């Protein structure tokens, strides 16, 4: 019984999430004594490299229709049928989230999105995911013959366990798209927030948008992506795509530095899965300190430039 993994190449390159998904699929295949097959839109040479992460077989197709959920669903369903898979692994990113529901209906499969870790297979398959904005984990049990798992960041470590394979091509003739792509706009230069390992975030304690220089300086020295609290983006101090929290982007970076943010429950909901949290706030009673690993009580206008200097010193040492 095979496990099929879908990963998307963007500009013919894979991101960390793709390698995680292949490693995850390889682990599930191992547990269920099957093959790990990858279906992807990368070119044959790039796609074949996924063998290094545990893919036994790679099916690749080329298309300009990756934006179309119906198209991608049909292409994956075709590969799924072809390799006789019973499990499908997706990344829980914007593409994965957009196709998971369609695929569940198309394949008649049970689906769990945002899985945090490998499934357990004793006594039927179960998998855990965060619910209530990370305030609890729920264990989901599948009762279907076909299963879809879409995996959250860091659900499994990336390990190179195999070697490159020769990618086979997947015949997608006859599969068409129902939507047209008008344009794609990507912010160049910075790592997008959902993928960032290091995030520097600031709130209303900044007093105004003109003071963000110290935040940018700190982010620059560590190579972090900047974020903000909701009132900050609502008042237009910062762009909307920087808003993190329950009603913004939910993130899981390695390091989250929160500056002049009180730590309201709705803010925490989007950031409390960060590995390490640093809070800088002048109010020792700020609720954020309860969720922090490291705290600095002080005026951010003094503390942040000092921290930036210390990091510069550390980096050049």
């Amino acid at each position, binding site marked *: 019984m095979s496990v099929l993994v879908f990963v998307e190449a963007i500009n013919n390159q894979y991101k960390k999430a793709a390698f995680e998904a292949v490693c995850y699929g390889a682990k599930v295949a191992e547990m269920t004594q099957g093959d790990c097959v990858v279906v992807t839109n990368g070119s044959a040479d790039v796609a074949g490299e996924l063998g290094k992460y545990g893919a036994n077989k790679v099916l690749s197709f080329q298309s300009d229709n990756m934006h*179309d959920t119906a198209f991608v669903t049909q292409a994956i369903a075709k590969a799924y049928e072809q390799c006789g898979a019973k499990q499908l692994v997706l990344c829980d990113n914007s593409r994965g989230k*957009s196709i998971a529901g369609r695929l569940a209906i198309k394949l008649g499969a*049970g689906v769990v999105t945002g899985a945090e870790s490998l499934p357990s297979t004793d006594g039927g398959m179960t998998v855990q995911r965060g*619910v209530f904005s990370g305030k609890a984990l729920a264990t989901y*049990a599948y009762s279907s013959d076909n299963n879809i798992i879409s995996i959250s960041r860091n659900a499994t470590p990336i390990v190179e366990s195999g070697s490159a394979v020769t990618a086979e091509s997947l015949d997608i003739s006859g599969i068409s798209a129902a939507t047209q792509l008008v344009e794609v706009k990507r912010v160049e230069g910075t790592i997008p927030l959902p993928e960032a390992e290091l995030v520097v975030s600031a709130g209303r304690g900044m007093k105004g948008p003109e003071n963000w220089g110290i935040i940018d300086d700190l982010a620059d020295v560590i190579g972090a992506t900047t974020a903000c609290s909701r009132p900050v983006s609502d008042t237009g101090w910062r762009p909307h795509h920087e808003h993190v929290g329950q009603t913004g982007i939910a993130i899981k970076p390695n390091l989250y530095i929160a500056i002049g943010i009180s730590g309201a429950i709705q803010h925490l909901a989007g950031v409390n899965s960060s590995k390490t949290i640093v809070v800088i706030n002048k109010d020792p009673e700020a609720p954020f300190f309860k969720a922090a690993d490291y705290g600095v009580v002080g005026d951010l206008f003094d503390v942040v430039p000092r921290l930036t*200097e210390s990091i510069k010193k550390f980096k050049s040492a």
Partner: protein
Amino acid sequence: MNLLVCISKTPETTSKIGFTDNNTTFATDGVQYIMNPYDEWYALVKALEVKEALGGTVTVINVGPAANDVIIRKALAIGADEAVRVDAEPKSAVFVAQQIAAYAKDKAYDMILTGKETIDYSGGLVGGMVAELMGTPFMSFVSNLDVADGKVTATCDIEGGVEVISASLPVVVSASKGLAEQRIPNMRGIMMAKRKPLNVVEAQSADDHVSIKGYTLPAEKSGVKLVDAENMDELVRLLHEEAKAL
């Protein structure tokens, strides 16, 4: 333009989260419920904007028990014309999607709108499932939407940017932040909502495929380590040596 907006209910954002029955059941005691923000603030208001520009009706649909009538009335107070409640516990995304598709099948909606996810279980599945069941395009994480001459152009949020796509009606759209501006119901809306139709229909049988077996609470943080504001070298040292974050 006939628009169908799928609305769900979720615990109010500051609710205390706890479990009973040996951690198998969400403890609902004292929990206040609200309309899911993505449904209320964005999907519903966008539907109203489209209707205001092009004419037509806005229907809201909820799969849930009679207690949900409160949030359904709120959707009517904000401006929806009529409401449908499919009378069943919404146990799984596929069950909910089957109900919505069964209801919508012969009604020729031009657009079905959902939120990008519910903020409690965050499955983010219902919209795509409905689209597949209806056989229509699905535009997801939409933060901007234009409708003209039977064509929809949507700006879909992706990591670090957007994809702009277009399609002919009918379509299913999932709303993300920014699609519209939140509207607060006024007194007149609240009065009118009482007289608007709220039809209750029976559920169809459908599989769930997955179920929740139990909950666990995440490990508690061991407590914050405070670092002197004058000594940022120490913070850098801790982040490097202890947290391995730098």
